[in-house]
């Protein structure tokens, strides 16, 4: 008997509504939910391929323990939890609680709360987000300094009402297709919104744009300052908003004089006329919205770049208005307890100051990882660096840092140094292959979940569609069990996932089950705009206004106004090195097929792209004797002696001096290798994790490295 159940996909961070067909207890089909306010029926290939993931023969189905000879042995859940609890206890006794860390990146945020619960109960301050130094932190901190709170980057701007959309260093059509991606397309095609795309690559989004700015990687700050120059000097800014709601405009006006469009054109490779045209289009089509992502933040000038883009939003007054960039707080959805509020609170309440001050990164990056750190987490790279020196000895990991973090081989070595490693995942990932114990995780289809984090004005509830595939478990249940076995007290009055879900919804006056019965998967709230008018200030900034000039930055020894810095390697900084390494290297743009390291096991997805690919301009390739489909090596000066292999995809959509390689590529089918050939075509093998760093967060050079490309012979 086929039954259709309403749910919410968690194949990425979009959280699209879905209709799931279940036949005889098995999921057979997943399509978009036409009644969900976000995706309105649209869905991407990642969500639709979950039936293949659920029942894949390679999916982890039971806990396993690695034997001294390297073989994996099936153990029971009871044995697994016993081993973990005993070993953790032993490490705490021998080396203290700070020898333990919890490591996460993508996936479910609830899970962080539960793990921080046991972590803070034992008094360890080491929560590590392996992407935390460049993913959302630069935006978050730059926005906090400028507006007093972070803009809704994850939830997205108000695209549906925008007249002009500026997408910068990211491609929502690949990464956020069901939510922001399709909203951009609808704004463009149904409402005639203008579209400006800043991207070194001619992406599918760029192919739909009114203006495409092919920027030199890692020079985005200069481009933003050049656009500010045009907007300010041509008096296209919102004079009323600037006068009433901002501080430091005169100083900004002075600063942008250092970035005239002709000079910016030289720095960024974007023609002067196009810079002017884009600036005018953005400033004169109000309301306008900006979205910038990892292309902008994965470099060593991340804070100043994010600040420069923020100031574009500020001087044009496109702030918290319909069709503009939005400020989340006070959010209509904040009645629901959010993971991002809960886990930093646990740190604040349960750890004494001296323990908190021992987090990695506090000393090295006192601003980005301490004073302005909204999450109280530890710097992931510095924490991994501590392993060989006897810092961290045991880890509980729920993601794949071997693939996702820079310096993959070093990361793998660090994991080998650990005394005890637990990894929970769907697959035997490269990181899991280094574990002592692996645990099989349940997917969103097998879990009861509350969704609020990525929705602008609604709350979602998604009861499990099927019972977990035998022996797979909800990560949260495992954390609760671990806490109990460690004999620790929870900070919450809860003992199960059900109680947690009810607790999260408590302030809405319903339980999890009642919510679903009453509202279905989604409850909508009214979005409120221009909340600063109600407060008569921007709560959160020292001046109560939008800080174009940031006193806080000045006091902490950073430039109070945005500026551009040449990337530490490249045609200007290291012209001699460019003789040998002639390409600028974009390491790890995303594709719609694969969410980070996931999906290469799934036949439908792998069919669409079987091999790791690198985009090279045909002229540049010809000079190297490389043809479309040839395998090539990529090498960088920062990782001498290392090289990674990709299939050349020749395209005019990339600058002759730039190449772009796929991210997170490993080979789950290569079972001859215990680590699944995870160093062969993994960009992070040649992108090291050591300095030069962004001075505020410690982000290494990721999207603006340099490299050489040679044909694989034979």
């Amino acid at each position, binding site marked *: 008997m086929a039954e259709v159940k309403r749910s919410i996909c968690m194949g990425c961070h979009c959280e699209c509504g879905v209709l799931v067909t279940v036949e005889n207890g098995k999921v057979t089909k997943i*399509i978009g939910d036409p009644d969900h306010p976000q995706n309105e029926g649209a*869905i991407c*290939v990642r969500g639709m391929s979950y039936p293949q993931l659920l029942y894949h023969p390679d999916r982890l189905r039971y806990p396993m323990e690695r034997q001294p000879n390297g073989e994996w042995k099936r153990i029971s859940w009871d044995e697994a939890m016993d081993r973990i609890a005993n070993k953790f206890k032993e490490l705490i006794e021998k080396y203290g609680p700070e020898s333990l860390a919890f490591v996460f990146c993508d996936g479910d945020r609830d899970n962080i709360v539960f793990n921080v619960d046991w972590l803070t109960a034992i008094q360890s301050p080491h929560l590590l987000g392996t992407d935390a130094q460049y993913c959302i932190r630069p935006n978050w901190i730059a926005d906090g300094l400028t507006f007093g709170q972070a803009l809704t980057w994850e939830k997205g701007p108000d695209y549906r009402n925008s007249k002009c959309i500026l997408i910068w260093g990211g491609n929502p059509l690949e990464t956020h*297709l069901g939510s922001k*991606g*399709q909203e951009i397309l609808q704004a463009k*095609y149904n409402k005639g919104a203008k579209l400006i795309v800043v991207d070194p690559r001619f992406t599918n989004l760029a192919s739909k744009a009114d203006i495409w700015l092919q920027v030199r990687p890692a020079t985005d700050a200069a481009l933003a300052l050049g656009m500010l120059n045009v907007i300010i000097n041509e008096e296209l800014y919102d004079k009323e908003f600037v006068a009433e709601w901002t501080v430091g405009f005169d100083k900004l006006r002075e600063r942008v004089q250092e970035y005239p469009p002709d000079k910016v054109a030289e720095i960024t490779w974007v023609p002067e006329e196009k810079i002017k045209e884009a600036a005018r289009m953005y400033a004169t089509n109000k309301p306008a919205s900006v979205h910038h992502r990892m292309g902008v933040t994965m470099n060593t000038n991340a804070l100043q770049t994010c600040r420069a883009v923020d100031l574009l939003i500020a001087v044009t007054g496109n702030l918290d208005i319909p069709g503009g960039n939005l400020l989340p707080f006070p959010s209509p959805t904040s009645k629901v307890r959010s993971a991002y509020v809960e886990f930093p609170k646990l740190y604040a309440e349960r750890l004494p100051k001296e323990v908190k001050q021992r987090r990695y990164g506090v000393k090295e990056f006192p601003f980005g990882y301490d004073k302005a750190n909204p999450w109280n987490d530890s710097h992931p790279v510095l924490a991994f660096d501590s392993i060989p020196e006897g810092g961290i000895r045991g880890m509980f990991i729920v993601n794949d840092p071997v693939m996702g973090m820079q310096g993959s081989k070093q990361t793998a070595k660090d994991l080998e140094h650990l005394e005890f490693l637990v990894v929970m995942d769907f697959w035997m990932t490269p990181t899991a292959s280094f574990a002592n114990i692996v645990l099989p995780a349940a997917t969103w289809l097998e879990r009861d979940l509350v969704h609020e984090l990525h929705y602008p004005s609604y709350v979602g509830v998604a009861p499990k569609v099927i019972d977990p595939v035998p022996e797979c478990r909800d990560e949260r249940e495992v954390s609760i069990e671990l806490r109990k076995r460690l004999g620790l007290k929870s900070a919450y009055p809860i003992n199960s996932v059900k109680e947690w879900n009810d607790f999260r919804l408590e302030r809405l006056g319903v339980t999890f089950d009642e919510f679903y019965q009453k509202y279905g998967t989604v409850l909508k709230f009214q979005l409120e705009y221009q909340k600063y008018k109600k407060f008569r200030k921007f709560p959160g900034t020292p001046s109560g206004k939008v800080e174009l000039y940031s006193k806080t930055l000045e006091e902490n020894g950073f430039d109070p106004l945005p500026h551009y810095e040449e990337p530490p390697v490249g045609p200007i900084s290291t012209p001699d090195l460019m003789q040998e390494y002639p390409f600028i290297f974009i390491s790890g743009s995303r594709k719609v097929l694969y969410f980070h390291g996931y999906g290469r096991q799934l036949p439908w997805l792998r069919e669409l792209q079987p091999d790791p690919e690198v985009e090279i301009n045909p002229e540049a390739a010809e000079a190297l004797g490389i043809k479309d489909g040839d395998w090539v090596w990529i090498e960088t000066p920062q990782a001498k002696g290392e090289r990674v292999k990709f299939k050349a995809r020749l395209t*005019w959509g990339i600058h002759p001096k730039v190449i772009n390689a796929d991210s997170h590529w490993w080979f789950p089918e290569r079972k001859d290798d215990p680590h699944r050939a995870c160093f062969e075509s993994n960009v992070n093998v040649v992108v090291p994790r050591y300095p030069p760093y962004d001075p505020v967060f410690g982000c290494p050079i990721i999207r603006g490295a340099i490299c050489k490309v040679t044909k694989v012979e034979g």
Partner: protein
Amino acid sequence: MAKYKLQADVKKCIGCHSCEIACKQEFHLPVGPMPIRVVKIGPRMINGGLRTDYVPVFCKHCEDAPCIRACPEHALYKRPDGIVMVNKEKCIGCQLCIDACPINAPQFNPELGKIELCNLCAHRIEKGEKPLCVLVCPARCLYFGETTEVNKKMQEIKVKDVFNFK
């Protein structure tokens, strides 16, 4: 004239593959056949600028379908409402229909050794539903309905584009 029509507004397509995988789900297809698929053309230089086109390709349910004429086993046939269908019982997998089709719409299913062809989700139409690819398309570039309606809609869209009306 065929009663139903599926048409793509080509300028909106982004090549995201959603239609392809939706079709695979609906018809339980293995690796290989894609009764609807998107052909990417470019990026190439046109009038000094780059251009990429994404063209969804699927059976057009021709009035005088060359695939039907080419099939030696009479496995392909046209329903009274104009939908071209494959009778899997009769299909021997010779693939002459693929040769005959101007856009390679028929797809070979290596697991069955037979042809797969877009039938506009005939089983869904019967229930008053749209083809699955239309429902899931994030770019909303696929239009389906009674032929006269779809023609009218596409006419409107194209005229709007040409005159740049909003």
